[in-house]
């Protein structure tokens, strides 16, 4: 059984190449070997936990360069630091309203239940951009600005019109899945952690297959280990089809239609 595969979470890291175009080209060579049709790319070639607006702009410029080189294979998500509200709104307009990007990436600068995120989320929702938020519950201790799925649940409750993906499903996925379950506008992105068996089965059992997204977190993670979470799961093929591409296509459809992008 072969499936169409769209990957909701990839980076320009873990591969050789001195330019964003070269790096995405390298990533796609590996993606091809596993039949992955499209990658959502976010953040640039260098990362910063608490970036300045200039750093963020540079990072997004690199992603723009990469996705413009492979328009049929990659979507871009705009990286924002919500501590800088106006700069974030400007960057949203530049990359999503006026550019080709289709989603937002929020990382670890500020916990996402902070009210400073509200205008950014509201604007993203107006633009129909999907908001992906890094979430982890670390027994070893989160970074000061690192969000948990419980933080995301608070944010999502304030913005029922927005669409969120809970990146890594909180790492500690048994708690993460339960934390986001009451909020139908949050999707579980299963990327990034170890391919621990039972993860995807529990997500499907608690959330339904239509709220689970495949992502890899490549190149830090292998496409292989993350794909195995779906292909190796004890769930029906119909559920795998949704998780591997169907759900992402559905939530991206409004913004793709608005931009005239046919897939």
């Amino acid at each position, binding site marked *: 059984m072969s499936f169409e595969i769209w990957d909701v979470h990839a980076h320009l890291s*873990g*591969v050789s190449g001195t330019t964003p175009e070269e790096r995405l080209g390298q*990533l796609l060579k*590996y993606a091809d*070997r*596993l039949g992955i049709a499209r990658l959502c790319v976010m953040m640039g070639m260098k990362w910063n936990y608490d970036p300045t607006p200039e750093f963020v702009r540079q990072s997004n410029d690199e992603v723009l360069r990469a996705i413009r080189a492979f328009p049929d294979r990659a979507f871009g998500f705009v990286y924002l630091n919500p501590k800088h509200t106006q700069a974030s709104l400007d960057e949203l307009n530049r990359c999503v309203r006026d550019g080709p990007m289709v989603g937002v990436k929020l990382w670890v600068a500020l916990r996402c239940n902070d009210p400073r995120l509200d205008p950014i989320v509201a604007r993203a929702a107006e633009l129909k951009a999907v908001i992906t938020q890094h979430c*982890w519950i*670390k*027994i*070893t201790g989160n970074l000061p600005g690192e969000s948990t799925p419980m933080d995301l649940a608070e944010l999502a409750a304030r913005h029922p019109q927005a669409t969120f993906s809970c990146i890594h499903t909180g*790492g*500690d996925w*048994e708690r993460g899945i339960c934390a986001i379950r009451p909020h139908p506008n949050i999707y579980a992105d299963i990327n990034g*952690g*170890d*391919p*621990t*068996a*039972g993860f995807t*089965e529990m997500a499907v059992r608690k959330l339904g297959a239509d709220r689970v997204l495949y992502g890899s977190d*490549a*190149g*830090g*993670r*292998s*496409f*292989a*280990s993350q*794909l*195995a*979470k779906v*292909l*190796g*799961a*004890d769930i029906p093929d119909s559920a795998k089809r949704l998780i591997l591409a169907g759900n992402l296509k559905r939530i991206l459809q409004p913004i793709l239609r608005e931009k005239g992008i046919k897939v």
Partner: protein
Amino acid sequence: MSLQASRRDFLKTAAAAAGAVWLRNAATAKPAEDQLIDTNVYLSRWPLRRLPCDETARLVAKLRANGVTQAWAGSFDALLHRDIASVNARLAEECRRHGSGLLVPFGTVNPKLPDWEEDLRRCVEQYRMPGIRLHPNYHGYPLDDADFVKLLRLAGRRGLIVQVVHVMEDRRMMHPLLQVEPPNLKPLGSVLKETPGLRLQLLNVKSPPLDLLNSGNVSMDIAMLEGVGGVGKWLAEAPAERVLFGSYAPMFYFESALLKLKESPLTEEQLRAVRCANAQRLLATITS
């Protein structure tokens, strides 16, 4: 010949016989190019959750369906149980009952428990195990611990493969009441100098020190090797004969390790080495 020397010879012979049996079982299953030896599976129950394939029959079906011709099996019970003899007895019996020779038992020994030498003796003499699997972090000793070094020396004399498990799960996601630090691998380099000829395999290691793989007979599995094209990149750095297939099923989705081989552009020779030849070589060394 002294009594001691004669006993040592007997033990070596027992291990060699065990290795020969498992090697023969692996070799007769399928043609060489179709063989797949999984050096890292577990039986019984992970203490903190049920896993989809933690019934042995189901695990065997999963392995068979994915073309595995032999699987080296440890027991999750080895982590926390103190009656190690019973853990190993159940493991041996479970491997005998399921899979028609697919499962090869790798018993455990905890060198911090009294009478561990007897557990080692049983692994070799009673169960004819070709190797043992150690969990230094769960058993609470560093890799320069004197009892651990003694265990390695005895295991080496008996011709056993010794698997050392680096981690069982991501530190960030451990249960708050069961946080187990991964052991520092650095002391292994000098410890191995004291145990020449020992065949040691590191399991569940993300980035083993290259100098360790280049010194002595040390190998690793691919279960926790990560990054895009990780296996291919690692083979460009590490000696090709030191990288073995290991899935860490049923804790990990078995498909993860298999897809890693597909993700990296590997030569036929590299594929054969990782899938089976390197594991067969380890078993064969026991018999020589």
